[in-house]
């Protein structure tokens, strides 16, 4: 158990974010009759899978006081590579999925080494790998878009992991069950295992952690590997939810995840945050992405509005700190 006071405080933040979610659902439902339908709920969830997976990973670098900007372009790049192997090299879907996740882990290791061993500022290191991954997928796969096998084909069965569609067209968003399970698992990892404990310790006081005899480099790298691993899984989720992966896209995806984490109470300066909070924060972001178009807000205003919400979330932290 995290000690009582800290736990209580974070519980408060989580409760607050949950309240915001409820308020947003009520508001959107009130303003748009078509919003309060089952398909919209499914759409919010569809939208949330890859972002949720990203946030489960990126929360670790964030808690060390760093950041991982490479996850957005990364996930597209990994999904391109995986899809290329399946569609154009006729490999089994399993191989494609493994390649997608494996690439994520590799880039995670690279990020970790750049940050923990070479001492590059995380912002800079992952900005560079963000650019690298942006070019990597298209470069390896010839620069074209890839459509992973559709749900109708046998090879496309993996899509049912996220969304089960029965014969008569009934849609069951079972992906949410998987997400909740992963939230619980990663929550456990962060709060009850050494990996998580040392992640928080590094974000809290890296020097002191080192003096305590912890292999700081290893755990610091590991935080980025976790981030990369989940970026790879997010690539699979993205490929499963949407039709075609376009090369060169993905820039900005990471901001949805990082923004969500911060809304959910993960401190950008490290040491503070929970997986549950980060997950709830992502739901807020996804609700906005789906809900704002529904209430008739046009494209540019959606982005302005999202920015304002993020400022509000960060301000809450700043004001709290000042007290």
């Amino acid at each position, binding site marked *: 158990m995290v000690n009582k006071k800290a736990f209580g405080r974070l519980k408060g933040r989580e409760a607050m974010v949950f309240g915001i979610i409820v308020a947003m659902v009520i508001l959107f439902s009130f303003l748009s009759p*078509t919003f309060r*339908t089952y*398909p*919209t709920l*499914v*759409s919010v969830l*569809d*939208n949330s899978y890859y972002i949720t997976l990203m946030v489960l990973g990126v929360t670790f670098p964030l808690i060390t006081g760093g950041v991982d900007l490479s996850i957005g372009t990364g996930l597209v790049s990994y999904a391109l590579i995986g899809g290329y192997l399946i*569609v*154009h*090299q006729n490999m089994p879907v399993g191989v494609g999925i493994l390649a997608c996740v494996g690439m994520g882990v590799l880039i995670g290791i690279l990020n970790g080494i750049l940050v923990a061993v070479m001492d590059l500022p995380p912002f800079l290191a992952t900005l560079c790998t963000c650019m690298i991954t942006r070019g990597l997928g298209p470069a390896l*796969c*010839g*620069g*074209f*878009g890839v*459509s992973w096998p*559709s*749900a*109708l084909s046998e090879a496309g069965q993996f899509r049912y992991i996220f*969304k089960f*569609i029965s014969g008569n*067209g009934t*849609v069951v968003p079972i992906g949410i069950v998987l997400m909740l399970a992963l939230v619980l698992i990663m929550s456990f990892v962060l709060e009850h295992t050494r990996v998580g404990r040392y992640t928080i310790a590094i974000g809290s006081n890296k020097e002191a952690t080192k003096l305590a005899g912890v292999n700081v480099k290893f755990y610091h790298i590991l935080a980025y590997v976790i981030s990369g691993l989940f970026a790879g899984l997010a690539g699979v989720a993205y490929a499963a*939810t*949407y*039709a*075609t992966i*376009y*090369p060169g*896209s993905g820039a*900005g*995806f990471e901001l949805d995840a990082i923004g969500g984490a911060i809304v959910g109470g993960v401190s950008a300066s490290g040491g503070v945050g929970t997986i549950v909070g980060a997950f709830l924060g992502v739901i807020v972001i996804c609700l906005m*992405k*789906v809900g704002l*178009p*529904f209430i008739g807000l*046009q*494209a*540019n205003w*959606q*982005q302005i509005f999202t920015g304002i919400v993020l400022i509000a979330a960060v301000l809450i932290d700043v004001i709290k700190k000042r007290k």
Partner: protein
Amino acid sequence: MKKKVVAVLLSTVMALSMAGCGGSEESSSSAQGGGAQAEANAGGDGGYTFEVLVKSFQSTYWQAAVQGIEKACGELGVKANSNGPANESDIADQIQMIDDAIEKKPDGIGLAACDANSVIDSLAKASQAGIPVVCFDTGVDGAPEGAVYATVATDNTAAGAVAAENMFPVIEEKIKAATTDAPVRIGEVNQDATGLNIQQRGKGFIDKMIELCKGVDKKVAVVGNEFYVNATEDKVAEGEAEVIIEVGVPAQTTVDLASTEAQKIMSKNDTIAIFGSNQTTAEGVITANQTLNKLSTDPEKGIIGVGFDAGTPQKEAIINGQFIGSVTQSPLMMGYECIQTLTKIAKGETVSDTPMDGYWYNKDNMEDDNIKPNLYD
């Protein structure tokens, strides 16, 4: 244009992987940058010879163009030597090929320029040598005065109109039955409101649909994205309209946001049809339908869907009866028109730019020879 580049690259890699797997004769010869030749019918129309340069000789997209060139040669009794670099990015190779083509002193050159700026010097050389050039697929804006006789490229406004023309007959009865109290809604999802070709396509659809509705005495309102609402002149207020065209533009050009826009429109009860104006947005419509399950080819049973360009998901949607059809651009027809224009020039006729339509394809004609090559995966 971007989609086309994607298509080309995609096809390039397909050709490469074919070469890797099989090593069949054609692919190995084309991998060496070899040429194809279309022999003229003996005693044809003066037996002109043209040099044609495509962007990349290996991709199926450009092979479709070559098919069109051969078709025209067969019909007109002229000869065309087609060539092109191995890769669309081999700009220098293509320039060398243009210069070689000029040396051969053909009756004309057909050119799909890899890079519009880099070919200008070569075009000047052709002009000095008195060899007429026809650009196809891609125009060269900065070409020296008089060097390019005509350009054959897709007219996006017309291509958007093609979508409207093919959608309208299917929903005509619904539109006729609409009243101001019970209007019907037609959706359009555009990738963005800033790219010129997407703008033209989106507007082309809207304007044509308004025209068709007026033909059956129905007034149209345009709602949604500010750009399209403001750009449309022939519209009425929402309350006075029997038909509402709702334009959705996602905040970012991603499939997930495109699908949200599509879903927003498709969730409304009065929506009878929806058009995704490029590959991303068409797939957005398909993604939204996975959950909503509302698309149908029967207007009484669901929403009519129309797409643009190709890609596996869209082709599957047409085969599965989710889309009634889509609009594709046609390299084949551009190649064909290119030779037609060159022949006219050689005969001394005056020519002008040829805007190419988008081509409608559906379940029935997808496998046709002049359509299939255009439909990349």
